[in-house]
């Protein structure tokens, strides 16, 4: 780690002893988040959507954990629950070794700047009445770390690093394009040099060249300051590039978790296989036959199928899959999978 770093990442992990570096920065155990549902016209019973149904994961300092899965499977809910932007229903979240689930609002404040999020929907996460400069510079105001011209310069340099022209700092969110807004969100998350960033589809609105620039930047910062990322994205090539390990979610649960190399070369869960086969290849000459099209009903988190959640669409499902929930178990070399058949 550089001795002359402009600002150390806000992490208490002093780094050094082997014991300390083995301790995960983030440790999530049995996280559950359910939402009460709109009641139907005639139903008096309150139903619940189990958006996140007991997930466990950890992230080491300087590590990137990729999180992929079908739209609506609970990735954003998991990300926001981990930061307690929405209140988890149950489970444990340890950040730098301390349990944060029981903390009050004021106690939580100590952690806020060290755990940041890049929101999936930049439009609704940027205050329309603040200029881009004020939005990105807010952490400096909160920390009181810099003011006046110095603050302006730091915001300008963040702008440049995400490929935005500093001369557009005075504009309001609606005056930017979709991808420019997304980059304002990225610059804001980076401003406080957090230890952990939940990146929820951070590059989905960017063209591939700027996407490359942002990913290179995230990886550079990680190498320099040991930042950790939970990287949620649908673009598997991007996830493959940036992640160390990857978790695959299906309907509220993690169904497979392993290092990226193993996931892409030797996926075990049938859902992972289908997912990998559907990646579009940027070459009109590439064949389409490799694609496994998933048949069957997409299950709902409101009323999930019994047993394995994937059993309604799994090409290989047998009797046991429809009654018994497969547990996420370790196979070899840390490769975890939840499937009766594999």
């Amino acid at each position, binding site marked *: 780690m550089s001795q002359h770093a402009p600002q150390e990442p806000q992490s208490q992990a002093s780094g050094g002893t082997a014991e300390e570096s083995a301790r995960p920065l983030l440790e999530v155990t049995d996280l559950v988040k359910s939402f009460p549902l709109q009641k139907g016209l005639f139903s008096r019973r309150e139903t619940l959507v189990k958006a996140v149904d007991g997930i466990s994961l950890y992230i080491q300092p300087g590590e990137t954990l990729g999180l992929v899965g079908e739209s609506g499977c609970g990735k954003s809910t998991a990300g926001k629950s981990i930061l307690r932007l929405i209140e988890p229903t149950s489970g444990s979240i340890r950040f730098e070794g301390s349990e944060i689930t029981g903390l009050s609002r004021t106690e939580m404040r100590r952690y806020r700047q060290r755990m940041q999020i890049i929101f999936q929907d930049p439009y609704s996460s940027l205050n329309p009445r603040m200029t881009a400069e004020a939005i990105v510079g807010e952490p400096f105001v909160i920390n009181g770390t810099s003011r006046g011209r110095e603050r302006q310069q730091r915001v300008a340099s963040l702008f440049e690093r995400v490929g935005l022209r500093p001369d557009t700092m005075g504009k309001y969110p609606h005056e930017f394009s*979709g991808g420019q807004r997304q980059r304002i969100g990225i610059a804001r998350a980076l401003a406080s040099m957090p230890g952990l960033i939940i990146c929820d589809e951070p590059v989905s609105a960017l063209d591939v060249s700027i996407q490359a620039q942002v990913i290179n930047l995230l990886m550079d910062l990680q190498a320099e300051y040991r930042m950790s990322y939970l990287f949620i994205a649908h673009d598997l090539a991007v996830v493959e590039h940036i992640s160390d390990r990857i978790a695959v979610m299906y309907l509220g649960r993690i169904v497979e978790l392993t290092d990226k190399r193993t996931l892409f070369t030797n996926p075990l869960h049938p859902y992972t296989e289908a997912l990998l086969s559907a990646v579009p290849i940027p070459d009109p*000459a590439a064949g389409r036959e490799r694609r496994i099209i998933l048949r069957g009903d997409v299950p709902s988190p*409101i009323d999930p199928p019994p047993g394995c959640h994937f059993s309604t669409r799994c090409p290989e499902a047998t009797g046991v899959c429809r009654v018994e929930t497969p547990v996420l178990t370790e196979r070899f070399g840390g490769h975890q999978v939840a499937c009766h058949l594999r």
Partner: protein
Amino acid sequence: MENSNAARTDNSGETLRQSECVLSLEDLKTHFITREGLVKAVDEVSYHLDRGETLGVVGESGCGKSVAALSILRLIPQPPGKIAGGKILFKGRNILSLAEREMQALRGNDISMIFQEPMTSLNPVLTIGQQISESIRLHMGYSRKDALDRAAEMLTLVKIPEPLRRLREYPHHLSGGMRQRVMIAMALSCEPLVLIADEPTTALDVTIQAQILELMVELKEKLGTAILMITHDLGVIAETARRVVVMYAGRVVEEAPVDMLFGDPRHPYTMGLLASVPRLDRSALAARPARLSEIKGIVPSLHELPKGCFFAPRCPHADARCHSGYPLWDQIRPGHKVACWYSRQIKGEA
């Protein structure tokens, strides 16, 4: 559903030629007046869409793709925006000279749009059901009950489970990808002649994305809908588009049939873009370089554009000529043109 709008598609008895142009932009200029000066977000952009074809639009973030699309529907806020010149022809008629009432009849009916950011176009205080069925009632003349049924049917088509329950929910109860699919459902429900899809699948996983793209192909085949596909995902372009337009800093810099764009790109910006794509089929996981390739430098300011080629300040091939004059179009082959002074010399370096 089958014959509800049959008359609309067959253009008053005219026989439909294979390549009938339904929509064309001719030298469109859309500018914004801002505190810092005039922003030329779209400047002399021309492209056209034939019936039943998919035209891909790609380009750097902020290059004017969405502003051009919103101009087609006349949804640019004026002021600060202003359509400063050019024409937008829909079936031969200039949209820009229509009365607002005629425009309303066109919008969401003949031409519909999937917006880039769902939350900008979904109303947070109305349920999903109210929003989709309202649009169906308005454009297809359905009764309240039929419209709700149709809305549920549309949600099923876009793979949203338990559609009846989802119809009662509000946008903020849905995941990002579900909101995007609600918008797709709204746009498709009116069986448009032209579908403008602005980054329609950014929040979708690849399996659902494949199904949604298939749905659009069906619409195209059934009704001859022309699709304007704006996307950063070059994989989606490769799979869906017939022709592609590449934009940079408010202008079109290259237009090509899709296989030529990938196989023989001529504009240095296009080449840089293609080189930046992380690819699973090529990565081989170990042999991959640690850094992704990116185009060096930053876009020019849209109110102080360079005198010559807008890409020249970042172009590895630029010389004095590039810095002094904006390049003329060079027609490489039928349907393939490029705005670069050295389009013949620097080929093959892609």
